[in-house]
């Protein structure tokens, strides 16, 4: 009788345990503990084991080092606003042009030369007051200016205007411009251009004339015989001037809502900027950053690297260092070490954060970048200029990352 009494209790317990397990699985318990939803368990399918993201990124960092150049730390920040002569505090673009600084704002082009500010507006020939990109042809000194309503070539004191009606410009909204010795490359909201300054010929690249999945071009850069286009929604296109051929880099998983694997290729198709330096292609997106050395890709997200935000407006690269303009600070990265700059809006103090592997060191500085929302930046020698949502900032190299700092 006793055993007969126990048997149903045992059976019920098994059923109960089974039900609990079923509830745990079907309700996503495992996914909660794994931090990400694991639908594959629900679907009862095989999960492929992969190394952790952290492990992969750590390996990547040790595999590919920068060229052992010390990672600079910028400091001694100085801020310029309307009180100093800027036409607006909203600064979209900045370019170092020898001894002068060219600044694009939403109310005109400002130029800092010999300590004095000059401002140029549509009355002077500027295509539109909202200047969003600037580059300089270093061979002849011509300044190329992208605005919300056309492109300017500023040469010998004269603003020459290019638009959809008087030239081959793909669209009047010019997000980025890259001035090479012969070709000027232009990224517009509806296609990219290559303008041959020797022959005055325009080439238009869009979804009909190139393998551009979407023609909404946001960033562009050129070096040597190549140009790279950041096509929003279409990844990155690499164009070879010698062969007139494209090579396309896309996010391998093909979905905007996820990144399937780390380091599997371009982090996302919604690209916002490209920079090429010393054999490395750097890419900014609104979903993280990417690096390509011609052989493999690395992806960087804010939860597993020193990157302070996945929302990146632009990227620049000089001397093996990438500069990312994020909505949450200026980020610099040499492939190994991140140094980021932000401001404490309450105290006005600067925050410099150094991240190297698992080590993070934060320093509070008396001077600060003017705002954490960065639109653009340019660096040369030991100086950096930064266009922010609230003012223009500049700093100089005050030290380098070494073991004593870390």
């Amino acid at each position, binding site marked *: 009788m006793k055993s007969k009494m126990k048997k149903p209790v045992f059976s019920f317990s098994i059923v109960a345990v089974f039900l609990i397990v079923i509830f745990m699985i079907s*309700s996503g318990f495992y996914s909660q503990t794994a931090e990400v939803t694991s639908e594959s368990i*629900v679907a009862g399918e095989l999960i492929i084991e992969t190394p952790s993201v952290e492990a992969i990124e750590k390996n990547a960092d040790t595999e590919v080092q920068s060229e052992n150049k010390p990672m600079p730390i910028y400091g001694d920040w100085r801020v310029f606003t309307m009180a100093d002569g800027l036409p607006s505090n909203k600064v979209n673009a900045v370019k170092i042009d020898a001894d002068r600084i060219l600044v694009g704002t939403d109310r005109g082009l400002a130029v800092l030369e010999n300590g004095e500010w000059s401002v140029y507006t549509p009355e002077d020939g500027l295509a539109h007051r909202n200047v969003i990109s600037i580059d300089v042809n270093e061979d002849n000194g011509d300044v190329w200016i992208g605005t919300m309503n056309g492109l300017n070539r500023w040469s010998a004191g004269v603003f020459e205007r290019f638009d959809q009606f008087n030239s081959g410009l*793909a*669209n009047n909204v010019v997000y980025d411009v890259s001035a090479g010795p012969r070709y000027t490359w232009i990224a517009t909201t509806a296609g990219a251009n290559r303008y041959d300054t020797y022959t005055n010929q325009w080439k238009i690249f869009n979804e009909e004339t190139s393998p551009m999945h979407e023609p909404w071009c946001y960033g562009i850069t050129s070096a040597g015989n190549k140009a790279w286009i950041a096509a929003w929604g279409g990844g990155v296109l690499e164009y070879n001037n010698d062969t007139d051929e494209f090579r396309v880099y896309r996010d391998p*998983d093909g979905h905007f809502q*996820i990144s399937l694997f780390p380091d599997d290729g371009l982090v996302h198709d919604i690209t916002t900027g490209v920079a090429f330096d010393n054999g490395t292609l750097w890419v900014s997106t609104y979903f993280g950053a990417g690096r390509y050395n011609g052989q493999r890709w690395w992806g960087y997200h804010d939860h597993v690297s020193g990157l302070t935000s996945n929302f990146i407006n632009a990227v620049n690269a000089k001397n093996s260092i990438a500069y990312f303009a994020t909505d949450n600070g200026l980020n610099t990265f040499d492939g190994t070490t991140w140094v980021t700059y932000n401001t404490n809006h309450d105290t006005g103090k600067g925050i410099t954060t150094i991240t190297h592997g698992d080590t993070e060191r934060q320093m509070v500085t008396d001077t600060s970048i003017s705002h954490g929302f960065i639109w653009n930046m340019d660096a040369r020698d030991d100086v950096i200029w930064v266009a922010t949502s609230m003012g223009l900032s500049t700093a100089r190299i005050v030290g380098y990352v070494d073991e004593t700092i870390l």
Partner: protein
Amino acid sequence: MQVNKHLIMFGVICLYAGYFSVLNAQAPTHANTPIEIYPFSNFQTPHYMFFEERLPYLGAAREYDYPTDVESVKIGFIGPLEGGGVYYTKSGHDMLKGTQIAIDEVNKAGGYRGLPFELIARNDIGLWGASGDELVTLYDMGAVAVIGSIDGNNSHVAIRVALKLEIPMVNTGSTDPTLTDTRIPWVIRTNPDDRQFNYALLNEIYNIRGYTRVAILRANSRYARVGTREFVDGARRLGNPVVIRQVFLPGETDFGQYLENIRLADAEAVVIWGEVDEIARIVKQMRALGMDQAVFSSEKVLTETFLELAGEDAEGVVGVFPYNPHSGKPELEAFVEKYKERYGNAPGHLAVLAYDGTLLLLDSIKKVGLNKALIRDEITSIEEYDGITGRINLDGSWNNAGPVWLAEYQNGELRFWEYQWKRSEN
């Protein structure tokens, strides 16, 4: 005592179930995607899932000076108003009329602190990127926010310009699923998109009606390509890949060869994506050829235009719709009456959707003032809005994640029902 232990055990199980049900009931991730058709859900957990949280705007635009000494509060509008196909421009004018009624109503009730709202409408049909130029124009004219547009291409161009200009936008008419996937923190969409429509069709076709062999016949356009993508992916994830995909060119009127290919593929059902006249013509040619496959399509088949063009062949056609026009909601009926009185005909769905989106925007402006960043903050903080179309649920990408409705022509009448995902038994 033994019974009590059983009860306790049962209670624990119930608590467990309840607890994890609550966890699962938390805000949908992206687009309320059913787990069975989430990308790679049968293969691998993504190492990063975006849109889990709404992106904050960290810029300084809240601190900018915005003019307050204005005589009116300018609201921009971009849409297809002139120069396109007749059905396309009709859509634009429907949207404009719905927007205008909303603005007039709010002005009648006092506008913005005594100032009237002023609608400035611009046409976005033109060369690639026309909407970008128009948005710049609206910005230069002093618009504090913009409504629009319908076309996916034009809407994409516009929202990127909105990001740089830092001007809030409410999209009430584009069904392009990728629009809000761009993560621009200045844009919301108040109408459900083709992703939601695709989910509803996948559910109806595979989970409810049990078809396994489905064909797609679509236009060779970005609208139709993007508009059916989720269906193609979802069908594959449900274990029933689309058996044949046929793409017709703009202007084609004879679909015989495509239909013959579909017939040879032994399809049980056909999903058609294109403009309303194209869909109607295809349905008529299908029936004339003796093809009795079930037909499924977009909201475009649930319109008077489709019924006029397809006639009796509309019978049995199933479409998806952004709201239930037969809901009997008093506010919806009042709007329909007002529209009829003013324009002499019943409103198209784009007019109704525009009315909702415009009221949401104007309510926000009335609440926070003319600072564009604060208007942005307000519209992007909304998770649920009760419009005349019903509940508008904005997900992590500020996209309307449903609910949506399906409808079928039965005996010449439309029967509507709400889409609810039915979990696959497999």
